[in-house]
């Protein structure tokens, strides 16, 4: 057991304007669960892509069991016993489970045999799956099972998992960990990528911490506190958002039996959602991705029209109104997808400011645009929200994720909303920008606005919410005060363990 399974030595990869990985070295022992820890943008994805043969390093060496390891393609990586569970982008919605699995294998068996193997393996590891179902119909957790089973069928020596728990309820996380421990006991090494410190403490044997492309430390996570790891990861002591306790005011936003049919054939329709949000209150809405979050945002922003009385703002029915009519009344929204939904990628920041600001900021008169006013609105957003960009004439897509998100949230906040709905306000945003965004949301509530924050980051929701509810298959749970909720209770609100089961350790 003395020889490492995989050894990275001085891996470097540069993209124009950014060094994604700079001399990264570490090693993974056989049977070890090794954590790769770092913020968004720290270079974790690039590193993993090099190990999986998707990206070629500019410099540095990899070796596997002492032999040189230079995968030119993912096929070569798989042939060497490396398998990967992706965070995004590796399943095909319109194909069934067996076809998806076959696509990830080098030499898949005949369809019938493959279906049988999928059943066997999924039973053994407690991840039940029907090989004939369309992947698009599966829940996020089930989709992850497809990826895991695809890997397991190839008897991998090294399993790479990229942020696997972001799509799971706490109960499902526990079950996943059982599966991973079983694999570990069978001698499989696991490279576990995450920024969730408690998980890493619970699961991993060793950890490498990346910041801005460099290794900034290694540690034994079981012997290191979460606080220490966090500071290594972020580099500075974090500012935790704060607010004063205040009694909430009048009911501002009210949803009554709100049902929405999803526009996407694989989407989740909302079913009889009931919720009231009061002035000065933040209601956090949790839930695993794909349980109706996008549909809820669409129903509130006005992109999806609903029965007029199903949504009211200050008592006025607005369900049948479009986005701009709702903006006029003070209901604003910021969707999850920054590029292509909240902002038009190739358009300038001035044009993007106009995108939602036209009505409330008076940027249009008689149908004609007031470009000067739009530009100064964009400049105000840039200044007030510390958006790093040379100026408002730059295209939205030229901004980093964090900066664009600050722009998008800032654009809505500066329009003085009566009620603001945001979906994943800090998704893929670096820690300092995330903290700034959360503080801005809390300040807005402080000033009397009603807020609905939809997020899959439970820590974030616990930090800023007054009340918490969870979406599960398009239904919203009864909201409860956030203070004092336990992880178990939250998990049950999110739907518990769905139909997962604990791995059969006898297998």
């Amino acid at each position, binding site marked *: 057991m003395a020889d490492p399974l995989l050894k990275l030595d001085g891996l470097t990869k540069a993209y*124009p304007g950014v060094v994604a990985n700079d001399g990264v070295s570490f090693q993974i022992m056989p049977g070890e669960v090794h954590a790769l820890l770092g913020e968004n943008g720290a270079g974790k994805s690039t590193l993993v892509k090099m190990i999986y043969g*998707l990206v070629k390093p500019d410099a540095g060496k990899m070796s596997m069991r002492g032999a040189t390891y230079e995968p030119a393609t993912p096929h070569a990586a798989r042939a060497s016993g490396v398998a990967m569970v992706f965070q995004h982008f590796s399943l095909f919605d319109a194909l069934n489970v067996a076809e998806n699995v076959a696509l990830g294998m080098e030499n898949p068996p005949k369809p019938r045999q493959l279906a049988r193997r999928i059943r066997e393996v999924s039973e053994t590891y407690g991840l039940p799956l029907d090989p004939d179902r369309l992947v698009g119909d599966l829940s996020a957790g089930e989709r992850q099972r497809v990826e895991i089973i695809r890997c397991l069928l190839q008897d991998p020596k090294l399993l790479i998992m990229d942020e696997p728990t972001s799509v799971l309820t706490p109960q499902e996380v526990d079950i996943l960990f059982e599966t991973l421990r079983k694999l570990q006991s069978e001698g499989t090494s696991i490279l576990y990528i995450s920024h969730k410190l408690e998980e890493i403490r619970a699961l991993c044997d060793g950890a490498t911490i990346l910041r801005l492309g460099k290794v900034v430390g290694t540690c034994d996570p079981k012997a290191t506190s979460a606080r220490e790891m966090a500071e290594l990861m972020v580099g500075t002591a974090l500012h935790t958002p704060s607010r004063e306790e205040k009694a909430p005011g009048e009911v501002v936003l009210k949803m009554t039996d709100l049902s929405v049919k999803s526009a996407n054939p694989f989407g989740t329709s909302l079913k009889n959602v009931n919720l009231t949000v009061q002035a000065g209150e933040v209601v956090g809405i949790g839930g695993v991705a794909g349980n109706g979050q996008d549909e809820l945002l669409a129903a509130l922003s006005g*992109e999806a029209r609903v029965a007029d009385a199903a949504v009211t703002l200050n008592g006025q029915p607005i369900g049948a109104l479009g986005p701009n009519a709702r903006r006029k009344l003070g209901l604003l929204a910021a969707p999850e997808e920054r590029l292509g939904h909240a902002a*038009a990628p*190739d*358009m300038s920041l001035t044009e993007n400011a106009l995108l939602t600001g036209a009505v409330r900021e008076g940027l249009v008169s008689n149908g*004609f645009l007031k470009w000067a006013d739009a530009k100064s609105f964009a400049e105000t957003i840039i200044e007030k929200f510390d958006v790093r960009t040379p100026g408002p004439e730059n295209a939205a897509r*030229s901004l980093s994720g964090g900066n664009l998100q600050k722009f998008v949230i800032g654009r809505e906040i500066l329009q003085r909303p009566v009620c603001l709905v945001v979906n994943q306000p800090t998704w893929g945003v670096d820690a300092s920008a995330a903290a700034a965004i959360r503080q801005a949301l809390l300040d807005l509530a402080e000033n009397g606005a009603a807020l609905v924050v939809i997020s899959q980051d439970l820590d974030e929701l616990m930090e800023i919410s007054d009340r918490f509810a969870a979406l599960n298959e398009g239904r919203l749970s009864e909201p409860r005060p956030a203070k004092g909720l336990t992880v178990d209770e939250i998990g049950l609100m999110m739907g518990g363990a769905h139909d997962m089961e604990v791995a059969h350790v006898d297998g």
Partner: protein
Amino acid sequence: MIRLEKRPQPSKAWSYATPLLAVLLTMVAGGALFAILGKDPLLAIRTIFWEPLFGEFAWYYRGQLLIKAGPLVLIAIGLSLGFRAGIWNIGAEGQYIMGAIFGAAVGLAFYPMEARWLIFPLMIIAGAFGGFVWAMIPALLKTKFNTNEILVSLLLVYVAEQFLASMALGLLRNPEGSGFPGSRNLQQYPAAANGELIAGTGLHWGGVAALIAVILAYILLNRHMLGFQIRVTGESPRAARFAGVKPNLLVVVCMGISGGLAGLAGLFEVAGPAGQISIDFNSGYGFTAIIVAFLGRLHPVGILLAGLLLALTYIGGEAAQANLGLPAAAIQAFQGMLLFFLLAVDVLTNFRVRIGKGEMA
């Protein structure tokens, strides 16, 4: 190895340079094509691009320039609005035909009344209406049934061509034409004729309409909310919906404007240079306008310039046909090539070309 790297934002300089580069490349490739056909490539290029403007017979050709450019620009301006919003009306040829039929029918209905102040404006309205109605078919099918507007608008061209034939042979046939197909000649009916406004320039009301369309489109796209909505929809349909754009309304508006303008172009043509409704009245302006729209980068001023350039290739093509025996089809291939090269070099606007160490990811 060569690889592409996405620019943080589209390059302004390249967006101006690419059409010129495309024209140059087309001249080179076109020259090669002409050489294969056994013609002197330099002479052919000169005949197409130089002679009509500055050659011996320029006095004749220059007038032709505006006659051809007018309908091209008029149609392309309309198409560009839809193309910008991702609404693909490629059946302008059909709308052009229907505009001509509607407009000519109104004019002929009044024959031989002499009341130009009434008849000509009515014809203009009818022409625009004809194109508009024809464009509304794909537009409404798209909004009501989500039917692909590309296929429907295109298929309707063939329907319009058959309709044109039946009109030329039937309802609109010149009763004094001793049985020959084709309508009365509107040029010889002063109340309905769309004649030259300034002698020798080739400028008729269609050219004036094209200029007005360029100016209005420029204002619409740069200063008006509707133009902004069109641009956002093309860039990012979801962001547009989020911003309150009604996608269906936009389909109807864009198709309506482009149909109306194509119809106008048809009316001005039938009442002017063509003179009459005949079986082979249409000559492909509706399709060439697609090239004009792209070559002009969907920008009104660009379209004006591109329209003049494509008109030049038509006229130069005729000159080359007459002088060098260059086949008419060569010009059509030449125009297609122009669009190919434009699309190819367009990559430079959004991507940087890097030559160096290769990478497959």
